[in-house]
């Protein structure tokens, strides 16, 4: 997780597979940040979650939102963009960690009255998510091509 108020920052999370990446940007307070979560629920390993809360979508997002609000962001001005949650070719549910990450994320955003403004999720693509702090522009790079996420 990384939060910033420096307009010169470009925050990047590389190669999201089944992990979920979330960018938050408040265009009024000019604060933003990004998180990269690997597994859906911190109950998988409570001890490890205490040491590394951002590894899990539930504890990571709760912590991330708290941090961004502490920096002056408000729910009303917050733009949420999401990427990742891909899956391998398999019908078996137990490997659908990407989808479970996404479900948990939606639930937490819903509880916080936040809507997803744009997303590039699921499928088999590996994605790199970038947030340009000067404008809040958010991009996705996949298969060598970078496009705006909007």
């Amino acid at each position, binding site marked *: 997780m990384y939060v910033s108020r420096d307009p010169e920052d470009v925050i990047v999370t590389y190669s999201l*597979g089944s992990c979920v990446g979330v960018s938050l940007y408040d265009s009024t307070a000019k604060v933003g940040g990004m998180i990269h979560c690997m597994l859906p629920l911190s109950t998988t390993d409570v001890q490890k979650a205490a040491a590394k809360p951002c590894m899990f979508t539930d504890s990571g997002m709760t912590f991330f939102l708290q941090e961004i609000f502490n920096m002056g962001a408000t729910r009303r001005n917050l733009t949420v963009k999401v990427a990742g949650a891909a899956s391998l070719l*398999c019908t078996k549910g*137990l490997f659908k960690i990407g989808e479970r990450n996404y479900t948990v994320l939606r639930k937490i955003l819903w509880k916080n009255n936040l809507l997803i403004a744009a997303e590039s999720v699921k499928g088999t693509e590996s994605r790199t998510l970038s947030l340009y702090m000067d404008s809040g522009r958010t991009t996705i790079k996949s298969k060598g091509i970078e496009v705006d996420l909007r």
Partner: protein
Amino acid sequence: MNKRNEIIAKLKDIPAIPVSASKAINFLQNPSKGLSGVVNIFEYDPGMTANILKLANSASFASGREISSLQEAVVRLGATNVLQLLVSSSLAPYMKIQLKGYDLPPGELWKSAVKTAICADVIKQTLKLDLPDFTFTAGLLHDIGKIVLGSFIDVNPTEIIDYATANGLSFPEAESKILGIDHAEAGAILLRNWNLPEELEQPVRWHHSPEQCEDDSGVTAVIHIADALTLMSGVGAGTEGLNYRISEKVSDKLGLNTKNIELIICETQIKYEEICDLYMKVED
């Protein structure tokens, strides 16, 4: 020359790994030779000895007094770890290259090799499997065929991905259709050229189609899953992304479920973060 023959010809041009690494790999197949055997492997390889001593004294392993002999390093790190480090430092230069054909930046294939090897170890421990020590080596080597397909041959990955998507195939299946060979088979041929043990060839050859493998030691099954979980974590996923198939039969046979898979991913990530730097610097 068709693509398949071109690739097989290129495989012959790849220089063999150092003799000490080859000996270490053989030793990991048959670790009953005792401590003195391990030290003998390094006898004529002073550069490697220096590397091992540096690692033994690094923050990850060091506890107190600096050690200066190989015997002490073996005692501190354990014979298997020392051999694995030797194999790793020999393979790193081959696998740290950029793979344009897969759109993998320099170092990414090596990271994925290390993470898959660590994951295989974690699977072994979590599921309490009785697997040979060379499982780790198999993890390091599983994608070695990509160095040929991704750098020496002018492969257009978009063509392969488009073919896979249009025909409902996985990436390796499409590789086979378009090039006449996939990276798994290319890797197995390379290991044969290097005279490495046949048991090691099996998991490399069949890591994307483990149901076709005759190996019943379980190594291939574990490498198949470790590779899949590594790709899911985003490491080593190039242009082809997660376009790989998981064998449900293998997953069932190993007794995988949601709980143990997530524990394996979690534990692998923590171990990887602890030792990734060490392996990335290993041949410096």
